[in-house]
């Protein structure tokens, strides 16, 4: 007790500093964590989250009996896997090529411009996509396909094109960001290694394979593991706003996040929506913790805990 008082006397201002952040985290993050019990209740607005009657796992049973459950999980996982693989390969390739360019000003310009798409919101992206894809006056239908003598395509009603479109948009928006992550690592590689390689008569290709890529290895592994930890989450804006909530596209644009939103706001199916949300939180938690354990095993400085 005496020790406690002594500690407080010396450190109370530092503890005081934690308060605003701690209160925010409590409200914004911790109260909703207790609120996940809603998925195990038969929600009605009058009794609220904590008063509605319990219903066991029936919300989950209903959810997994629908075809939606399979579709949204499949879409979330497959899109994320393609984003991770393609995104990493392209970002690493571009970072290596950027590093090999000698003109410093050009290097700076490329880096600056390629990051621009990362800075804009998904709402703006959806307007940009619409300028290309609009069936009446979009650039692709009106200028490209017409010039090629092809029939216009009704993009927002044709699901088969959307896996491709969404991958392109995701890469377009994220390439600059991912490239900088790898480029920063390349810049940190010990320059004497390159000098030694040149003295030994290594070609450019050999330098890339034996100095640059090994130098990038740990960053690639760590970022990929972290991304795998988030494989159950999706960018709501990309899958809801960019396809403009178009009904015919749902089979290829529904992810867990869009399902939860639609259940809550549009179809008013709070039971199944919250069950999907809890499913995402729990599996997501297991994945993030495993990813961090794997990262820690690999490089303890880079893991969260």
């Amino acid at each position, binding site marked *: 007790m005496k020790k406690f008082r002594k500690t407080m006397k010396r450190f109370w201002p530092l503890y005081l500093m934690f308060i605003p952040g701690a209160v925010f985290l409590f409200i914004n993050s911790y109260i909703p964590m207790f609120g996940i019990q809603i998925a195990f209740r038969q929600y009605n607005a009058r009794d609220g989250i904590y008063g509605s009657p319990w219903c066991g796992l029936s919300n989950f049973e209903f959810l997994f009996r629908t075809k939606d459950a399979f579709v949204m999980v499949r879409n979330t996982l497959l899109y994320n896997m393609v984003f991770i693989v393609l995104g990493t390969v392209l970002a690493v390739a571009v970072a290596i090529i950027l590093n090999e360019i000698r003109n410093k000003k050009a290097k700076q310009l490329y880096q600056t411009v390629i990051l621009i798409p990362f800075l804009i919101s998904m709402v703006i992206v959806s307007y940009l996509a619409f300028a290309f894809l609009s069936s009446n006056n979009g650039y692709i239908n009106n200028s490209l396909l017409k010039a090629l003598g092809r029939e216009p395509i009704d993009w927002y009603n044709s699901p088969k094109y959307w896996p491709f479109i969404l991958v392109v948009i995701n890469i377009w928006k994220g390439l600059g960001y991912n490239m900088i992550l790898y480029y920063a690592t390349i810049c940190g590689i010990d320059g004497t290694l390159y000098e030694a390689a040149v003295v030994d008569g290594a070609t450019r290709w050999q330098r890339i394979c034996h100095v640059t890529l090994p130098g990038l290895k740990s960053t690639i592994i760590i*970022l990929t593991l972290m991304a795998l930890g988030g494989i159950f989450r999706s960018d709501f804006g990309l899958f809801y706003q960019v396809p403009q*909530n178009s009904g015919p596209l749902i089979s290829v644009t529904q992810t867990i996040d869009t399902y939860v939103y639609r259940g*809550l706001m549009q179809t008013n199916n709070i039971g199944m929506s919250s069950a999907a949300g809890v499913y995402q939180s729990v599996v997501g938690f297991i994945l993030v913790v495993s990813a961090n354990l794997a990262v820690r095993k690999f490089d303890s400085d880079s893991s969260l805990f």
Partner: protein
Amino acid sequence: MVEKGRGFQIFGHILMGTLLICALAPFILLIMSSLTDEQTLITNGYSFFPAKFSTYAYDYLLRKSGSVLRGYGISVVVTTIGTVCNLLITTLYAYPLSRKELPGRNIFAFYLFFTMLFSGGLVPSYLMWTQTFHIRNTIFALLIPNLLMSAFNVIMMRTYFTANIPDAVVEAARVDGANEFKILFRIVLPMALPIIATISLLVGLAYWNDWMNGLYYVNDDKMFSIQVLLMNIQRDLDQLRQQAQQGGNVNTADLPSTSVRMALTVMGVLPIMIIYPFMQKYFVKGIAIGAVKG
């Protein structure tokens, strides 16, 4: 060898130049169509080289559309207040975490980390904000949920403090009789300006670009920020299109025309495009720090 080197340089420039064009092309199409005559836009579609230019869309936005100026005002206010509050809360949480001699700091660190690992999800959050705190259609809806503090930024700042503020400096100030708040604001913060600049930019960008809080918690058009306004225009168009497909009568008269929508989109990205070239260094630094220490 020299010849071979030059060949690679040319290849590199062609490749990076292509990527540069790909990154910029959509923005050029956007700006061009916002400057295209409305009738030309309807007959010829969006084009990089419009047949007929017009500044009608911008005249319209400046003169007639009060909602755009209002949306701009709300975006500016929310971004400014939000960034200042966020930075204050982030700094206040990060600084004590960086003080190694503070008993129990690991508990506060875990309390922070855990929010990055597990979340209650949208449904409980939505019900809490709307039914317990009644933030629907208030300025707080755009300021507080998910945006007021990011655990990621706190960790970034704590790491910077740990690496760049020597314990001896803090100890010396304490011996001189400065209290902890004075040490933080007079001594530590002036030494941490680069990280403050970086985090302010990332936070400011998050506030300016946010439309999700608007989607969840705002349906009164008096409270629309510019992004929320854009999102709602698109949503109205989606609904009209669905009605049209079901053979209903569609009235598009109340909605802004194509070129006006494009001009509005330009307005939505303009502040970012103006600030970005000057602050590019800090953005890149912020991203690179985030990679090294997630």
